[in-house]
């Protein structure tokens, strides 16, 4: 696991890219390809078109890294290239975007927690009947090694819009306004998608905390 401060990491990365360090470029491709693909997919008509846009974006990064002035982060710069290209392509295609309504991402009936875990009747109706187990909450970095890959697997099973939002917010650490802009969604939509996705990630974590090392 890399624990280098992101800014320092990034300055070094830009220098290595400019010096023609192929491993640095491979790192960038491996790290961002999947997320970029999902962001692009929101703007264009097909998975193939999204892959084309991602490919073009990395080519533009190769061409442009010499002129990159670090006024924004490398990541922000790359994603701006990506979104601009994806939007242009989408407009050319006369695209209706899949996340523009919440349809693909949110089921109105979807709950953060199984309703059976709350009391149904009596004075305490709506309070927990089966509360989350109180665990000695481990430190995130320590836990990440054990359960991180499992949570990333949970992400893969989410509806595309929820997955894109959770990846950008919690894996990449982008801000809500950045994510709204990238995915062209309203703040309210962003929050609903984030809520659904985080609720599911928490459920997976709870399962793990309740039964560490068990079969997940």
């Amino acid at each position: 696991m890399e624990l280098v401060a992101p800014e320092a990491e990034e300055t070094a990365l830009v220098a290595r890219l400019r010096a023609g360090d192929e491993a640095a470029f491979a790192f960038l491709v491996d790290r961002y390809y999947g997320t970029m693909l999902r962001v692009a997919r929101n703007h264009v008509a097909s998975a193939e078109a999204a892959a084309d846009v991602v490919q073009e974006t990395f080519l533009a990064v190769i061409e442009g890294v010499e002129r990159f002035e670090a006024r924004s982060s490398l990541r922000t710069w790359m994603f701006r290239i990506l979104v601009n290209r994806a939007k242009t392509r989408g407009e050319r295609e006369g695209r209706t975007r899949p996340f523009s309504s919440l349809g693909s991402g949110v089921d109105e009936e979807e709950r953060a927690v199984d309703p059976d875990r709350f009391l149904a009747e009596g004075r305490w109706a709506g309070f927990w009947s089966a509360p989350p187990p109180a665990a000695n909450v481990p430190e995130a970095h320590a836990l990440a090694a054990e359960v991180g890959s499992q949570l990333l697997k949970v992400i893969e099973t989410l509806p595309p819009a929820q997955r894109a939002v959770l990846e950008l917010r919690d894996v990449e650490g982008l801000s809500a306004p950045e994510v709204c802009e990238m995915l062209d969604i309203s703040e309210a939509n962003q929050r609903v998608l984030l809520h659904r996705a985080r609720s599911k990630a928490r459920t997976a974590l709870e399962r793990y905390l309740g039964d560490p090392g068990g079969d997940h």
Partner: protein
Amino acid sequence: MRQPVVRCVEFVESVTDWMEGALTDDERVALEEHLTICPHCTEYLAQLRLSSAVLRAADRTTREAPPPEARQALLEAFRRRR
């Protein structure tokens, strides 16, 4: 006697709006009051935060790989250019 305004079942559905700063002042106060009386929702919140922190710390090396041909084509383009 005052009735509790926010119940657990509502807490778990509003907690993201609270974390995102999207509640009205009244709603925010009601939610925070609930937290002071409910250890289970406090635990729930801790787990929610922990899962975000785990995702943030969970590295990079565990994420999906790009398609090999696409990756190869990009690395070749990089080599030609540099």
